[in-house]
């Protein structure tokens, strides 16, 4: 029905569009996975495939990939738990008097399961230097003012548990936690894993990171400041001279414009074309009320006409450039692609801030971006389809039902975005 070449070309265009969508979908899904994971409870070492949780070296032999604890480990755990309970009770008895304020603090301290026990940044004096040395992980950044010393055995306990099994649910350390929590608040029994919602504001970036980030900013600032020093002028003149020399030794009188620049220019002209047309439409539909308005309208239209004439000339120049460029070089037509975002005057400094104030605003922003991109794509496809299908439909002579079916399909594709169809009825001769 349709020439194979046409269909293939059009299908290729559609597939290009489909591929872009697929690519963006993939990226989005990856981000979604990451975000969802962050918003769930932060189970310690959730993925068994991650590296072995570096306890204080006590359990290096424990296989990190193991998900089920051996009975031996379970027993050990049980014993340790009991010992801990006892220690806690004893301690509670001793410190009950003067540690009224410690109790609530202990709760958050224990709540953060393994992350808290592995954290050492900003933890205060109660942690001995020994534990710091043993700590192999970088500081977790949990902000706690005081942590009781009893956390030490706790940590070791949990590390064994870590090595044994830190599968989903973190069921093993729970006994330890639960029991510990009986002490400060006999009421709650549920171990609270760390969730961003509840405890997010307690997070703090590690010192190492902050230092690195500030050093980074310093260096970038230094870089941009050197751009404005005295030696820049000398450098610029040297560069210009070099570029000129390159141009003159080029071997042929090539044009100044590169193909990439032509592409940019073509994009600009396309945009100009549609804006000019829009303006023309406005003027044509305007209703001048007096002679001044009428004259103004006339001048505007004539001005628009002059601009279009200029641009047609410009286009002709561009055409010769492209033809010239394609000449002496080995390859013919280059594959089309859009150039990466130039980034404006200062692409290198940290990206500018984009401030939003509500979820709805963010959603609207994202939705509009997508919609505009989609419209661009639709317009491109529309032009391509028009270019191929309209000539086909008008050329086809046999006007039988196959042609009608084709017309109907073309109408729906071109005029309704493929979403709706028209109906063609044949007029019946009135039966007499």
């Amino acid at each position: 029905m349709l020439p194979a070449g046409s269909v293939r070309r059009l299908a290729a265009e559609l597939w290009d569009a489909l591929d872009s969508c697929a690519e963006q979908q993939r990226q989005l899904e990856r981000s979604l996975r990451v975000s969802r994971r962050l918003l769930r409870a932060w189970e310690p070492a959730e993925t068994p495939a991650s590296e072995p949780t570096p306890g204080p070296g006590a359990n290096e032999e424990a296989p990190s990939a193991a998900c089920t604890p051996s009975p031996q480990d379970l027993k050990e755990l049980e014993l340790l738990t009991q010992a801990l309970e006892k220690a806690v009770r004893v301690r509670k008895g001793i410190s009950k008097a003067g540690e009224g304020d410690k109790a609530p603090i202990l709760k958050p301290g224990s709540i953060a399961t393994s992350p808290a026990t592995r954290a050492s940044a900003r933890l205060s004096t109660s942690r001995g230097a020994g534990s710091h040395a043993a700590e192999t992980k970088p500081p977790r950044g949990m902000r706690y003012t005081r942590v009781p010393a009893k956390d030490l055995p706790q940590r070791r306990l949990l590390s064994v548990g870590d090595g044994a099994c830190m599968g989903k649910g973190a069921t093993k350390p729970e006994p330890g936690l639960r029991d510990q929590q009986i002490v400060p608040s006999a009421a709650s029994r549920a171990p609270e894993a760390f969730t961003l919602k509840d405890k997010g504001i307690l997070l703090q970036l590690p010192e190492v990171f902050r230092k690195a980030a500030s050093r980074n900013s310093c260096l970038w600032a230094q870089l941009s400041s050197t751009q404005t020093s005295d030696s820049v002028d000398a450098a610029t003149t040297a560069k210009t001279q070099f570029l000129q020399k390159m141009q003159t030794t080029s071997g042929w009188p090539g044009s100044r414009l590169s193909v990439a620049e032509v592409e940019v220019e073509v994009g600009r002209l396309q945009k100009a074309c549609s804006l000019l047309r829009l303006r023309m439409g406005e003027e044509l539909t305007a209703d001048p009320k007096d002679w001044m308005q009428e004259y103004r309208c006339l001048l505007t239209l004539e001005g628009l006409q002059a601009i279009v004439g200029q641009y047609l000339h410009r286009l002709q120049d561009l055409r010769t450039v492209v033809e010239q460029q394609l000449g002496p070089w080995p390859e013919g037509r280059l594959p089309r692609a859009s150039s990466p975002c130039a980034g404006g005057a200062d692409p290198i400094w940290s990206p500018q801030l984009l401030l939003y104030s509500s979820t709805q605003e963010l959603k609207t922003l994202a939705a509009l971006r997508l919609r505009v991109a989609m419209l661009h794509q639709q317009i491109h496809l529309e032009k391509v389809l028009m270019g191929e299908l309209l000539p086909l439909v008008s050329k086809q002579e046999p006007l039988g039902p196959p042609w009608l079916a084709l017309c109907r399909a073309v109408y729906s594709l071109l005029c309704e975005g493929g979403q709706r169809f028209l109906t063609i009825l044949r007029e019946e001769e009135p039966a007499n």
Partner: protein
Amino acid sequence: MGRRRRRRGDPADAARALPEAIAALSQTLPAGPGPETFRRAKFDRPEAAPALWRLLFRVLSPQPADSASAAPAPEAQARWVKSALRSQGYPRRALAQLPDDGSQGARELLLALAWLLARGPLPERLLAQNRVRLGDEMPVCQCEALASPGPPAARVEADSCVDIRHLQWLMGKLRFRWRNLMASQQEQCVLLSKIHSYTRGCHSDRSLGHLSVTETELLRDPEGGRQDTVLGACPPEASQPTFLPKIPGPGAGDLEPLARELLALQEELREATEARRAAWEAGVGGRGPEWSASRRALQEAVGQELAALQRAWEQGGGLGQPHGPGRLVRTEPGVPGGLGLRATEVIGALRSQEAHLEVVLRRLQGRCRQELAKLAGALPGLIWVPPPGP
């Protein structure tokens, strides 16, 4: 930070500075060859050539390469480098004449590298490309929106699909993917917003206030061996080893549609202006004596309007308009933000863009309708019932 003042024009200084500069350059450039290679290239030694071809390939490709994807074959690389340089306007013919096997041309490639360095801030651009993105970024401009499709997925295209129904099916598939994309993105916005609000006050940088997804993940998995933590925030890697990045540039065929459009526009304008000019000239006798003064004023006014109109596309994406990615930062509604672009402004700009594009699309569809109506009109005995609705 004191700036080091260089005594200008001191040759001894320059001689000392050169080896340092070359050493720094080879460290900065990705896949940078050592200073010895540069020296060999200066003398056009063939053993330096492959390294320089590789270097130029890395430098010119827009995507940050990663170790996961294998580099394309040397011949493919060499051809691609030649095309890319050509499209940027590299003036020397000698480059085109180098053999594709990448065995020669060290000196010419060195010249090409120098040319690239002279034209723009190449090392900075490379740094910016390869940097770790700490924030949750959203592009402020429309440059990359759905532009590059990435590696072409495996397409199942039987040769027998020579039917327009295949195209209809593809179109439907596209619409479906769009809907999915929209839904996923809206969900991502909600999640992002939550993460931002839950971590407010946590960032050491006061102007940011809250953590980004990347930073939060850093805290969650400091030892994260998975790709998802920090690298996941970077632009996606090319997953297929032999995928060569596309080179921007129109072929001669791309200018045709534009030329047609401009010509059509010119024709319509000519018709309109001729008619109005004739009408105007006919009635000019009845103008008052203040005619010549207002006439000049009108001419000036119109001139300025049109100049402003032209600026809309000539400077498009230039200094005035924001460009590049923006780091999303959540603020309280009432608080006046410091430096930064407000989402409301971007939303406004996008809405007007959307309206404009919808007009363009409707116009194109209308034109199609007219064409088809003409064909339909040529066929008596048929009734064409267009679909109802908006």
